[in-house]
């Protein structure tokens, strides 16, 4: 067993959690049924028919953290998959105990709107474990953001309406990716990781069967609406959608594009942000890609404050005093790694980095502005 985190930790176990859950649920009038509906998932003979458990993951405790309906916090897991039997009780991890479970990795989930994590372990006599982690998030966008950390792996079709293609437009992002024993799933407000410690044919089949059970009955959702504000191409530059990431935290931003040790863009749970790269379609010289960051704040004042913060720290030599506290809505600068441009429109702030020249930086700003004014961008 390679990955030992989460074992024998003092984290809240289901047995205790469930008592609390039932108490709270009783108070609020929720009932829990262990008579789960039939699953449509799983390879014939792989998923056991018996005792599909409707996880009591929807108590008021976490529903209060989200506007989503109760049904969005439900999933059915098989009790048996191939040779593997599921533990009856999950490890329940909250925002208070997440660092006990996964050390500093918890910062990632808290950087999105994390509600709760349920961890189930499947065990088999002569096989290594399969660990199933169900991360219940505040919105579909948050679960999408977690999957967007890495678009690598083999796209999987877990339900009839999920897409198996690699992303080419914003509507074609896969909902599940598999690689080397790990399946990662975005299913509405649920992000799931199903991992076999040792990959082989039976464990791969079992992991995918668990994935299908997770996705069963859950309708697919769309990527964050903020993505529609991104241009797909700018002159000869094409977006590499497999480098697109949705995020809300500067720690997450720094994990794929280091900007600063300080939170220069005032990122926070209520802020939506996306980053992607553009490169030249037929660039034999493999010149550095252009990096685009786009953030949407709760209002124009917040966006303006973030811009002023960015200017003060990142471009201290480009004006002092008033110029930094009330920067222009759009500007371009040549710095060490190329041309940097930005555009602040209403509550949107777009920045483009590492452009090879002034013209390219201007083109990105123009393309973004045109997108915003075209009516294609939902301001929800």
């Amino acid at each position, binding site marked *: 067993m390679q990955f030992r985190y989460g074992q024998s930790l003092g984290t809240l176990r289901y047995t205790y959690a469930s008592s609390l859950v039932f108490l709270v649920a009783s108070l609020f009038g929720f009932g829990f049924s262990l008579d789960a509906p039939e699953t449509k998932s799983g390879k014939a003979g792989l998923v056991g028919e018996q005792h599909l458990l409707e996880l009591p993951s929807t108590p008021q405790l976490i529903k209060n953290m989200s506007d989503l309906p109760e049904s969005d916090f439900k999933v059915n897991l098989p009790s048996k998959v191939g040779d593997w039997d599921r533990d009856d009780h999950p490890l329940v991890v909250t925002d208070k105990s997440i660092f006990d479970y996964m050390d500093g990795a918890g910062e990632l989930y808290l950087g999105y709107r994390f509600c709760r994590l349920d961890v189930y372990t499947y065990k088999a006599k002569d096989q290594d474990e399969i660990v199933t982690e169900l991360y219940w998030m505040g919105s579909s966008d948050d679960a999408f953001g977690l999957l967007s950390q890495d678009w690598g792996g083999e796209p999987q079709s877990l339900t009839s309406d999920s897409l198996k293609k690699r992303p080419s437009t914003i509507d074609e992002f896969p909902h599940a990716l598999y690689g080397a024993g790990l399946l990662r799933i975005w299913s509405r407000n649920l992000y799931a990781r199903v991992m076999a410690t040792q990959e082989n044919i039976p464990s791969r089949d079992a992991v995918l069967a668990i994935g299908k059970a997770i996705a069963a009955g859950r309708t697919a959702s769309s990527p964050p609406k903020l993505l529609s504000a991104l241009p797909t191409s700018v002159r000869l530059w094409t977006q590499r959608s497999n480098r697109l990431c949705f995020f809300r935290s500067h720690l997450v931003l720094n994990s794929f594009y*280091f900007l600063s040790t300080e939170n220069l863009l005032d990122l926070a749970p209520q802020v939506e942000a996306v980053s992607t790269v553009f490169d030249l379609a037929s660039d034999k010289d493999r010149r550095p890609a252009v990096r685009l960051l786009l953030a949407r704040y709760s209002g124009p004042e917040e966006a303006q404050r973030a811009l002023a913060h960015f200017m003060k720290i990142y471009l201290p030599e480009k004006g002092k005093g008033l110029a930094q506290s009330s920067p222009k809505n759009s500007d371009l600068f040549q710095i060490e790694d190329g041309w940097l441009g930005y555009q602040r429109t209403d509550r949107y702030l777009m920045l483009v980095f590492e452009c090879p020249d002034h013209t390219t930086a201007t083109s990105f700003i123009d393309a973004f502005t045109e997108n915003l004014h075209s009516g294609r961008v939902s301001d929800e």
Partner: protein
Amino acid sequence: MHLQRISIPGGFQMNKTYPVVTRRDFVRGTVATVLSSGIADKLHARGSARPTRSSTVILVRDEKAFATGTKVDASVLKQMLAELLMRATGQKSERTAWLSLVQLSDVIGVVPTPHLNATHKELIDAVKASLVNAGIPAPQIRNAQGGPDQPRACNSLIALPALKAHWLTGIGTVLKNYITFSGSPSSYHDADNAKLGEIWKMPHVQGKTRLVLVDALRPLCDKGPQPDPRYLWNYSGLIAGTDPVAVEAVCLKIITEKRKALRGEPWPLSPPPLCVSMADEKYGLGTSRLSEIKIERVGWMQDVLV
């Protein structure tokens, strides 16, 4: 600049003072100076000068380290460990190698990595058995991973981390392995990872590390934050030295080269591992410059990466 006093159990206090580092500092090559000096006008900072150092790092690899798949072959590992110890100390036997590093009366703390890509149990067991064979009484050998009381109870420490990238610190191998010794691990996350070297200079830690021995059997080359098996590979190596920064620098090179090989283009660690150059430039724990490190390679050379 932020300034905050943090108390560590046992009375040690550290200053939390860090200037803001930006991407531009990396492009300019002034990160070390900015971090070391904390001067306000970092735009005009230049690379700092320090005396030249030299260190030796031993890399032993054996393609048979794994019996099948990911199952370690304990007998091969034992041979690799013996070779590594003798090379690292210049001694002719495993026993004399240990006795050149520790005293028979020492309480020895073995410090493995428990999280993420954990140190292989087979390696922990092999090190303990090797110490016992060298004459160290078994009760004097303890697992010292944990809070500040762990190093306090030991005369000698053997750092035994596993090679891995880390999403909050860039690399999470040697320097980060002592993070719990601080008594305040979260104080070293995010931008504060630059100060990880500070822990090695705390009174209850400083001067106790006799050997840094890295489990590079199956490293993790992407930062996670949770293990993704696509980024694990059988490197089948052990890395050792007495200079923790030099060992970390070699580890960093291996991780960086593996990432480049996987993507077919540069794939820099992000966030950048600020802690490595800081451990050199500010805390003087060793050298982070590959030009000052002699790497002695033994055994399997395919895809050695460094």
